[in-house]
């Protein structure tokens, strides 16, 4: 465990207690407990199909919590899903972008659906920060996977969420992109944000102060060191 990171505080950003989830008769999560504090990064390791993405889908409110409890910023997410969504941002395998819209239009769409009042110069500054200034007015359908990922992450700069959920954030990013993402996440954590990410890439995550966890057979276990290949 990284010594610089404190354990959960009395006021965790996210708190999961005994969360279970099943697809039909198949139990994917068999009672997950997790506390994530401000400025803390939790990394989920585990084999393919171990339930990392399901756990992130539950944390993002995409799937409803049916067994167990999930509190985000003190809110019971079961009954305050919409308020919870105001406080989190999920960037998964899909970037949720519309190909026929330009980068600026996609960010404008995101801002309006989140109720943010963001000016066009602010949108362009965010695009500049993620290295997409030159592609600001181009339709997203022509973007590479890495550019799409950068654009999806630009939303973080606009929304400033309390909790950032990332599913394999380093995929499709080149070395420069990985460095840029880690720098951005470090800033975000220093400002008090919280991150929960699923990854298969401990080397790239190593730069971040984080608490590694391992998910196997539906049980989430804290790790002293990352063991991503353990099934």
């Amino acid at each position, binding site marked *: 465990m990284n010594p610089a990171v404190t354990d959960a505080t009395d006021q965790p950003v996210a708190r999961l207690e005994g969360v279970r989830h099943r697809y039909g008769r198949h139990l994917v999560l068999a009672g997950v407990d997790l506390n994530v504090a401000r400025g803390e990064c939790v990394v989920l390791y585990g084999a393919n199909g171990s339930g990392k993405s399901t756990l992130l889908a539950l944390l993002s409110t*995409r799937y409803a919590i049916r067994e167990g409890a999930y509190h985000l910023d003190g809110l019971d997410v079961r009954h305050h899903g*919409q308020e919870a969504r105001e406080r989190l941002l999920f960037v998964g395998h899909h970037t949720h972008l519309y190909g*026929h*819209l330009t980068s600026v239009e996609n960010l404008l769409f995101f801002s309006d659906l989140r109720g943010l009042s963001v000016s066009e110069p602010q949108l362009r500054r965010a695009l500049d920060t993620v290295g997409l200034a030159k592609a600001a007015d181009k339709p997203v359908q022509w973007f590479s996977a890495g550019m799409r990922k950068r654009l999806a992450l630009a939303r973080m700069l606009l929304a400033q969420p309390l909790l950032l959920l990332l599913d394999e954030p380093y995929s499709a990013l080149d070395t420069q992109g990985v460095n840029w993402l880690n720098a951005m996440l470090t800033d975000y954590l220093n400002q008090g944000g919280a991150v929960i990410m699923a990854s298969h890439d401990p080397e790239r995550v190593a730069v971040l102060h984080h608490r590694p966890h391992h998910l196997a057979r539906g049980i989430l276990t804290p790790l002293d060191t990352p063991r991503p290949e353990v099934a």
Partner: protein
Amino acid sequence: MFKAIYRIAWKDVAGDLRRRATLSSMLFFAISVLVVFQAAFEPDRKEALRLLPGLLWATTLFTTLVGLGRVFQAEEEDGAFEGLLLASVPRGVIFFGKWLGNLLLTLLVEFLILPLTMVLFNVDAWAHIPAILAILALGTLGLTGLGTLLAAMTRGARSRETLLALLLLPLTAPLLISGVQAVAAILATDGQVAPWLKLLVIFDVVYLAMTPWAFGWLVEE
């Protein structure tokens, strides 16, 4: 909230005008239907006037089905539907945004096909165009409302267009009958339009009150 509804509708309408996908398909389909009807019946002016309400609503229904089949097409790309559901707005707002985008495209097609129908069938009802358009618009509110919900329901189905038609046709039959009768009453000299308009309003209110709630329930996983 209204900004979010506007933005979703804008995304759909602007996207369609850029890609010329749904609107052009709807227009092409509507024109084809009208031409086939004209060739099949070859009605004289009096007969055409009698057929006009049914023709208009049949064409509206078919073109609406074409539009509804594509209403969630943009959301199939890159998990965009999931992105919509992760927005911090009520589910009803998402529904109304999608509905409004589809409604605007359908109204645009209706606005274009009405004069075309008059010309094709040589019907002299130009003085009634505003009233007929108003009735079409009134019926389209409910038709597209229920249709948007059913499009969301059948979104993941393999033969979604067939399923959509199978579900939409029986459920909107009362609304369509009211629409046909209302247009017929406008065209007749001594027609009673008010009762049919009341029925159209009732269907619109019921459909548009139920569908956002049903949509919210439908998308929960």
